[in-house]
């Protein structure tokens, strides 16, 4: 039996997931609508550039939430972790660099800031993971509690105010444009997607995540180290939240304990829209990426209609979430399980 998949078989794989097909149609329709109704904005590079700067913020968070949801858990603390990492990164930079630092010294400060953020994200993730896997507190409660805890720590660290006065090099690098065209946040997001694609598709860890999410009892009896897997997953989610914090810090050029408050719902919406089963065990990365793009296009489209007040945005996100649930027709637990059967059958065909 040949293990190499032909390009035809690979195409069949992509199109065999009903969620992804649905989303490709929605995306095409949305882009068409955008092109016709707001042609001027559609054709300007600036529109796409500003989109590419915004969506990595919640896109990276959604990637983290996706991993935890594959396990059947959830991570509601991503926004708090992002803010906390941003705040600590900002404080590190301000502490290490005088305002007029140049060249090598600035680079050192930037690297230190990124490292601090990633370490904070990792530690937060480990805390989440241990509480879920070792103490066995339900993930919803853990991440709600840590959300409150991390936000509280952030408030204490900043005294409730925003931290600004960052060295200008930070925003230049992390909110800048590669070759003058491609925004760096987009690059960070693409990097994140590639990392997760590798983890899920090419490593034992990835395969085990799906198994653990499908049936924890069977996984345990099959010898999977569920504690290690869970901690690693929440750790990764924490680090992706920290990456989101790095991007937010660059975009806003400041850090605050309550930035991105609406991103929690948005991240969950993206993940569910992307076809990830909230009970764990199935869902594809490509679906989540599509969902991120769709929601960003929708968001930018709304921006071009200044009459629609910003207050309507949560209404629209909530409405879309409910619509997705209705459209997917997940009326019985078996419907959700069918997603898993589709995956194993594909593996047999390939």
């Amino acid at each position: 039996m040949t293990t190499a998949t032909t390009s035809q078989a690979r195409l069949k794989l992509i199109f065999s997931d009903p969620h992804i097909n649905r989303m490709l149609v929605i995306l095409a329709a949305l882009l068409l609508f955008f092109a016709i109704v707001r042609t001027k904005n559609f054709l300007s590079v600036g529109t796409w550039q500003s989109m590419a700067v915004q969506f990595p913020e919640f896109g990276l968070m959604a990637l983290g939430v996706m991993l935890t949801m594959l396990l059947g858990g959830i991570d509601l603390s991503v926004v708090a972790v992002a803010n906390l990492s941003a705040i600590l990164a900002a404080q590190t930079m301000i502490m290490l660099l005088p305002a007029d630092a140049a060249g090598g010294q600035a680079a050192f400060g930037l690297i230190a800031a990124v490292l601090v953020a990633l370490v904070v994200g990792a530690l937060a993730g480990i805390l989440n993971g241990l509480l879920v896997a070792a103490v066995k507190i339900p993930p919803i409660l853990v991440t709600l509690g840590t959300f409150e805890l991390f936000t509280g720590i952030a408030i204490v660290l900043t005294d409730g105010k925003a931290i600004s006065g960052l060295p200008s090099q930070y925003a230049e690098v992390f909110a800048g444009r590669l070759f003058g065209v491609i925004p760096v946040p987009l690059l960070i997001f693409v990097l994140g997607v590639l990392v997760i694609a590798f983890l899920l598709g090419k490593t034992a860890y990835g395969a085990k995540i799906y198994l653990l999410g499908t049936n924890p009892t069977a996984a345990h009896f099959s010898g999977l180290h569920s504690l290690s897997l869970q901690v690693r997953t929440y750790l990764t989610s924490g680090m992706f939240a920290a990456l989101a914090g790095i991007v937010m810090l660059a975009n806003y050029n400041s850090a605050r304990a309550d930035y991105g408050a609406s991103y929690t719902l948005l991240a969950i919406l993206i993940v569910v829209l992307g076809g990830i089963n909230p009970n764990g065990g199935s869902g594809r990365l490509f679906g989540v990426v599509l969902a991120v793009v769709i929601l960003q296009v929708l968001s930018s489209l709304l921006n071009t209609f200044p009459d629609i007040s910003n207050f309507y945005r949560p209404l629209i996100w909530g409405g879309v979430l409910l619509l997705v649930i209705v459209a997917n027709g997940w009326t019985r637990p078996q419907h959700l399980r069918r997603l898993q059967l589709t995956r194993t059958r594909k593996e047999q065909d390939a």
Partner: protein
Amino acid sequence: MAAMVRRLLKANEFYLFLVILVIAVLIQLRSGQFFTLTNLVSLANAMVVPGLFAVAAFMVLVSGGIDVSFPALASLAVYATTRLLVDTGYDGGVWLPFLIAILLGALLGAVNGAFVSRYAVPTLIITLGTSSVFSGFMQGALGSVQIPNIPQGMKDFGSAVLFVAQHPETGLKANLPLSFLVLVAVVAIVFFIMRYTTFGRGLYAIGGDESVAARAGFKVRWIKFRLYVVVGVIAAIAGLIRTSMMGQMHPTNLLGMELMVIAAVVLGGTAITGGTGSLTGVMLGTLLIVIVQNSMILVGIPTIWQSVALGTLIIIGTGISAVQLTRSGKRTAVRV
């Protein structure tokens, strides 16, 4: 007697009561202000609205779901009621606002119920969606401006007191509001429902194991639907009381309370997976959270640490209950 003592020691609620007592004594030692009548009355005052929400959240948690939409639901229902009554220049008693708010609460609750009973998606996610829809609708479509002059009937109800406690030294007063009786009434009614009606027992059954409950004959979808209507009604009542007591309608005042309320219920011994829980625990849990929030000042902890304290409390509280569960061997399946 011995059997009763043994049962008491096994109950989660007993240890919660001990914790509250310990904290109370600590605060008393630190500030000498805890066991004063004014402090106790103001705690009771602060407990009315969260207590009502907690009772509603308790019913949902027992059935195995998690509802995060009740503050938004309450805000929308009461905002619409107040807006309507103010615009029509209403001047009568408080019964009409209550009636309208209850109807709206039931309607919005029915929206929740329709989705939850029909779709197998976790309640948390569905109510995240409806929460955004409710608050988005209130802030977008209804304009969501603060309404400073609410109908007189509501104001009168809000300021009606059962009795006033006055501190002998500082002269500070604390009111035990009339709405405390509403809390007592709702708790009593829900207690009766949960223990003595098929609907209530059905909630416990569904929370324990939904498919088994269905096979045992419980009409699961109908029970779930009615549950969310009831939750909507209780939430609307709580919102109306909050508005009446504040004397004005502030649309976003209640938003964000869901975490605190769910934490209170879980700390009180209700499992997040459903199937167990008692109202005593719920009330004790609410009391604990209210004490932590209101009395930190008495111990000298600045309010900036409130979120940290709340988060730590949730983690420790749920952690202890999780460890207890694992130790008692009640865990049958490996949980992720």
